[in-house]
């Protein structure tokens, strides 16, 4: 493919813009090895004390474990709900499929602050505030649209001929789905699962509305920590999170191509 050459001026501007984009992520790496009590840059001394501090912070550890469990549970339920739904919307294509897809992905269009407030008010009334089911439903609502979209896209790009061939050769619809459709859409499932896990794991706005002093997620604990104290603890946690996120992104990229999930 012929592309116009890139001028030095554009290279320069793009490099500066990239530096700006990555600056906050890049800065936490050296900061996490600070030996200072307070956050300052450059640090006056270096140490691994803030990584050790994470292990001595039961609140953060508890919140991390809860976030992982919540994200994993949400992901499993998401897939269990979205796979049948996508199959119905894409393959069985009932009347109004498009309108239904819009409705099911609508929670993404609503600002999370509005959605969070809406859930806070109704969940408080039925006693679900600061409970596991409350947080679970909240995370389900904001991650399901992503999962539905990724799986529907994966399903609609599959060549239907293979499924038709299997059906013609006498396989029952359930067998076709289990033996042909499902294996072929596996990359889509991996991408959807990873996306669901990461979105749930990073979710902070709804979690802030839905959590309480006894039950909160890692991003919420980090938010409260940053709000009240300026020390390098969150830098150390952030570095671990960046590594964690990167690992998931690389796994997904290997199995599917991350760029394809976002840009057609």
């Amino acid at each position, binding site marked *: *493919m012929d*592309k*116009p050459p*890139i001028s030095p001026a*554009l*290279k320069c*501007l*793009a490099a500066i*813009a*990239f530096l*700006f*984009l990555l*600056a*906050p*992520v*890049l800065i*936490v790496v050296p*900061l996490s090895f600070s030996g200072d009590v307070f*956050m*300052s*840059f*450059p640090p006056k001394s270096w140490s691994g004390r803030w990584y050790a501090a994470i292990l001595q912070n039961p609140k953060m550890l508890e919140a991390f474990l809860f976030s992982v469990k919540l994200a994993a549970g949400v992901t499993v339920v998401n897939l*269990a*709900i*979205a796979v*049948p*739904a996508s199959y*119905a919307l894409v393959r*069985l294509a*009932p009347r109004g499929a498009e309108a239904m897809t819009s409705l099911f992905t609508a*929670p993404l269009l609503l*600002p999370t*602050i*509005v*959605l969070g*407030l*809406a*859930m806070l*008010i109704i969940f408080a009334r039925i006693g679900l505030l600061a409970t596991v089911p409350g947080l679970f*439903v909240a995370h*389900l609502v904001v991650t*399901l649209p992503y999962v539905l979209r990724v799986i529907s896209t994966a399903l609609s790009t599959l060549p239907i001929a293979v499924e038709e061939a299997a059906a013609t050769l006498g396989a029952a619809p359930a067998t076709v789905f289990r033996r042909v459709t499902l294996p072929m859409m596996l990359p889509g499932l991996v991408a959807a699962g990873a996306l669901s896990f990461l979105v749930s794991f*990073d979710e*902070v*706005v709804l979690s*802030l509305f839905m959590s309480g002093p006894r039950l909160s997620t890692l*991003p919420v604990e*980090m*938010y409260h920590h*940053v*709000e009240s104290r300026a020390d390098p603890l*969150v830098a150390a946690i952030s570095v671990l*999170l*960046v590594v964690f*996120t*990167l690992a998931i*992104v690389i796994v997904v990229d290997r199995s599917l191509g*991350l*760029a394809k999930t*976002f840009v057609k």
Partner: protein
Amino acid sequence: MSATATVAATAGSAADRPAGGGLVVALLLPIALVNLVGFLLPVFNLALISLQEVQASGAMTGGWSTAKWVSVVTDDFYWELLWNTIRTSLGITLATLLVSYPIALYLHRSSGLWRSVLLVMVISPLLLSAVVRTYGWIAILSDQGVVNSVLKAFGAAEPWRLMFNLTGVTIGLTEILMPYMILALVAGFGRLDPRAEEAAATLGASPFRVFRRIVLPLSVPGIALGSLLTFVLAVSSFITPKLLGGGRVFLLATEVYDQAIVTLDWPLAATLSMIVLVVFGIAIAVYGRLVRSIG
């Protein structure tokens, strides 16, 4: 629940249709339930709450009243809040566009593995919590941060106030919203025919002229979409304004949060969040008109 019952009833009558209506309903029922319980009911309820009558004690009486709306509309504080929010969000949108455009154009012109690597670099921040990225900005902008220690090394006596004000919030949100803008711009560039640029260059146009007369006009749809996305996200974000603003920056979204969590005035929070939605609606309408006028 009556909605589900109706759906189930229609399903029963449609079950004998050849397309397998019963199966469709069974497959869609779980997602419909999540949507109903977690989205439709709460949002509908929210709209009602803003019209609920509240006693001086804060207790809801169960009656109806437009008192919250009247008090918000007649209070100068909220008008200033709205104006502040819109002005700041527009500024953030413009700044985001300016820093994102070179990256998007660069991505459009590059290819192969390098392009994929850069795209992952653009997308990855999206998968990282806003708390982490805001924290990074605190490390850069605070009095003991990167910028101020550089300034100090050059002999500045006073630290530059880059945090706990609108400057910090604007810088932080600009960076946090960049990936959305870049992706919208890259998608927009997809429709740009490289042959048009080539033709212009062959006919003797300077690179800058090619950019101004061909690339820029053809990327307007991408700019419009990216700006809409950035603007509505800026209006509704509150994590970054809260942390970088340090309680000294008042925007619509931070006020919704404060009223809901700190003051516990839910009808007021609901009213303000409805105003957020009105701003959203206006932004989308402006976008729609713009897109139509481009053709």
